């Protein structure tokens, strides 16, 4: 009797076991799939979002580069002449001499001092002792200095009429500047901002500066043949 009831229980369990195992297996795989799959989907969506964002940045950058007006780009050379990469003392001195001569002013002495150098902006002070017959010529010289490139500023000046009232002696202090050129470009996805109104105004002022006049020394044409070429 006991044996037949045990066997009955066995048959009861046997028909339940199949579906129960299937449900357990599905539940186990389901949990595993949800865990792994959700992680993968999340990662994939995040990757897509970041790639899409970078694509948008690149599109913006391309649009900003294309929007740059060519006439602004043409002025790159002016800006480099206005604020050169290397110390422009020789340029400045030659321009000063040129304009002094134009205004009938004699330069007695020129000295350089007060060098301030850093990674961003370097400066020096040029002190010139000059003599002119009147104040107007001295004013014209100072105005010329302010109008030529490379950029220089008058930081101080003292002009005195000589004892015999024949001329004015002036000590002129001019600061001038130079700065290293940028060595790196912004990140490829970083958009380029255009020039602001203030920057455009500075660019306009720079383009109005007189460019330094350079003298080209061409080799002389030898018309006659030399008897001793090394003499």
């Amino acid at each position: 009797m006991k044996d037949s009831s045990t066997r009955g229980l066995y048959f009861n369990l046997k028909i339940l076991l199949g579906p129960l195992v299937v449900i357990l297996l599905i539940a186990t795989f389901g949990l595993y799939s949800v865990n792994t799959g959700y992680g993968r989907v999340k990662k994939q969506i995040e990757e897509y979002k970041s790639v899409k964002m970078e694509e948008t940045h690149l599109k913006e950058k391309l649009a900003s580069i294309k929007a740059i007006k060519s006439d602004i780009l043409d002025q790159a050379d002016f800006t480099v002449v206005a604020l050169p990469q290397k110390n422009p003392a020789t340029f400045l001195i030659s321009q000063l001499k040129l304009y002094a001569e134009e205004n009938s002013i004699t330069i007695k002495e020129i000295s350089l001092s007060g060098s301030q150098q850093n990674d961003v902006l370097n400066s020096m002070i040029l002190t010139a002792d000059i003599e002119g017959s009147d104040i107007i010529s001295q004013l014209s010289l100072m105005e010329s200095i302010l109008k030529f490139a490379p950029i220089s500023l008058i930081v101080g000046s003292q002009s005195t009429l000589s004892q015999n009232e024949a001329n004015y002696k002036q000590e002129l202090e001019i600061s001038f500047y130079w700065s290293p050129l940028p060595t790196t470009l912004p990140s490829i996805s970083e958009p380029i901002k255009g020039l602001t109104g203030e920057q455009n105004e500075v660019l306009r002022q720079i383009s109005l500066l007189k460019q330094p006049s350079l003298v080209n020394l061409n080799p002389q044409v030898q018309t006659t043949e030399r008897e001793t070429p090394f003499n």
Partner: protein
Amino acid sequence: MAINLLSQELKPKPYVVNFAKILKKLAMVSLLVFLVGVMLLVGIIFIFSQRTKAAISSQEALKREIKALQETEQRIVLIKDRIDKIESVYKEENATDGVASIREISRVIPEGTLIQEFSLEPDNTEVKVLADSLSSLAKFASGITGLGSFEKIVLKSLEFDPEKGYVAIFGFHRTKV
């Protein structure tokens, strides 16, 4: 007609049979949900990976285009760098305004008056004037006050030299723009 020879006691109980049927249905539904879920996950991963691939290839094309315009970028970076630095140069303390002040003052110098000395410093322009008479000095004072370019004109000193005349020192402060 088939005859069941098994003992009735060995036959599963009807409620167990019913429960087993329910479990079978549940297992079928679970399997269906599982399969649909897996297909959905695989589908989402596939769609987004395709979109990511497309976005990456579009990025590459954009990068190539940007590289082709690198000279333009270099130029604008250079211009901006120079302008930023030039702006900071213009903000430095200087006596440039004094040049314009002396130019304006020189235009109103009357006869009998002479600028003997001038000095330019940041925010301070000083002019030493020599006048042969008080009326000449008054004309000069009237001229400079009429210019309207100065916020303040200070008479710093006034001396009388019997040999030269009146010597006055004026300090000029320009109107802030």
